[in-house]
């Protein structure tokens, strides 16, 4: 059963140095509040797993929390660059960054395998591309029925998964807004999980079109109203706000990023 705990306590308890941490949700309902707790607690040597790496990934890398990135797309708002990640890759600042690079289909298959208790996922993917040459978690497998060669990707079982959702009830059951992305799979694949929510209610209400994650499959729920800001919280397709887009200017300059980091660490 999930326990309902304050956000800082949840992150302090669940996210440990050296962990493989999946942070999912995009383009809205991104768990920024939880990620900022990770930064405040100065967690380090994390492997950040995230299909679409965006501003949140840039912040965690720039803050020196992650030494490895497992991803399938990485770009800033409006197709801009992620300067903190570029700086880490190109200049090892503030620390060198390793990457493990996939396609979205491959990452999704890896989460599904992890959530299903299987050692690998299988897909018609990667064929003819240069990705397998650089990504050890992509191999091939021969179908025992047809003899066809297919891509095999190793299962993802993160130490901890973090996602943000609209609401939970007092027992820790969580209502995910629609099935978009891989939030459900990330939680079910991880050894531990934290779901931050906009509100905690007596009754989740009608779940038509939504996905309910039962309390027994979640480690902790934390009440974090506005916890997805500056990404939207109204629904899976809500727009990011202007401060999200203004990230490019903060990220571009180490000193300016340093001031942003100070602001996060001294709330």
């Amino acid at each position: 059963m999930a326990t309902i705990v304050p956000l800082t306590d949840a992150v302090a308890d669940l996210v440990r140095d050296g962990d493989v941490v999946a942070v999912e949700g995009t383009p809205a309902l991104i768990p920024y509040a939880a990620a900022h707790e990770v930064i405040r607690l100065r967690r380090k040597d994390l492997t950040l797993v995230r299909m679409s790496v965006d501003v949140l990934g840039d912040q965690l890398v720039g803050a020196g929390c992650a030494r490895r990135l497992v991803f399938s797309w990485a770009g800033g708002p409006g197709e801009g660059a992620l300067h903190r990640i570029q700086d880490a890759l190109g200049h090892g600042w503030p620390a060198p960054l390793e990457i493990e690079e996939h396609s979205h289909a491959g990452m999704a298959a890896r989460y599904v395998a992890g959530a299903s208790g299987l050692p690998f996922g299988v897909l018609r993917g990667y064929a003819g591309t240069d990705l397998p040459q650089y990504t050890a978690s992509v191999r091939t497998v021969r179908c025992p029925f047809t003899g066809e060669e297919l891509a095999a990707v190793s299962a993802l079982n993160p130490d901890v998964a973090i996602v943000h959702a609209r609401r939970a009830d007092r027992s820790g059951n969580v209502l995910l807004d629609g099935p978009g992305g891989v939030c459900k799979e990330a939680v079910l694949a991880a050894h531990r999980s934290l779901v931050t929510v906009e509100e905690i209610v007596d009754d989740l209400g009608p779940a038509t079109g939504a996905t309910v994650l039962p309390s027994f499959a979640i480690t902790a729920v934390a009440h974090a109203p506005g916890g997805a800001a500056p990404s939207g919280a109204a629904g899976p397709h809500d727009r990011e706000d202007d401060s999200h887009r203004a990230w490019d200017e903060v990220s571009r300059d180490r000193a300016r990023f340093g001031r942003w980091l100070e602001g996060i660490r001294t709330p």
Partner: protein
Amino acid sequence: MTTLDRPPTSSGPWTADEMVTVAAARTLRSGQACIAADGLPARAADLARRLHAPDLLRIDGSGRIGDLGTVGAPELHAYWIQSGRIDVGLLSGAQIDVFGNLNTTVLGDYAEPDVRLPGAGSAPEIAASCREIVVVMRHRLRAFVERVDFVTALGFGTGQLDRALLGMRGGGPRRVITDLGVLEPDPATSELALTAVHPGVGVEQVRAETGWTLEVSDDLLVTDPPTPHELATLRSLVTGSPEWQGR
């Protein structure tokens, strides 16, 4: 990904980006299912829906299936893309080569790249499995190269037999629509050849922006200019919809 780095090529009251968007939109048909990458491809698909293809089903990378609802990433990639149900995949890239292979990963060497690009997203599996691929991109010499630095999404690989050898079900690149003209794979070699130029564009101008020896079709066409209706619709869509202001 790239910004227009020189004045638009245009022989009329339209920009180069408007020309490529209109030309790409015209290739889409009502009743088709399509998935479009962000940027020019997505804009072309949206324009087609507002012009001649109201029943073009748009599937997008966030899992939206037209107006019918949203599916998760595993379902999107397995049931919808990989299954081969999608008629047209509209892609773009930082580089394309003579065999229509696309690069959105790195410029230069992978370990020490000159430019790190966003990466694959859904493109490898779209390129593998959609019935046909339409590439939509700006025609620049640094982007149209003989061999891409990194194959992110497969076109025809190194030649005509590669897709079949890899067991790919999708047909691969059907046409490459740029702001200068249209390239299509030569049926005999799968090499991209010039089959149309846009109004006011000369063959030599296209060759100058292409990094391989570009073959030109004997039946080279000139694209019909954008109509006032096409331009007005595109402009209302660009200014009227927040969809185009970011991802």
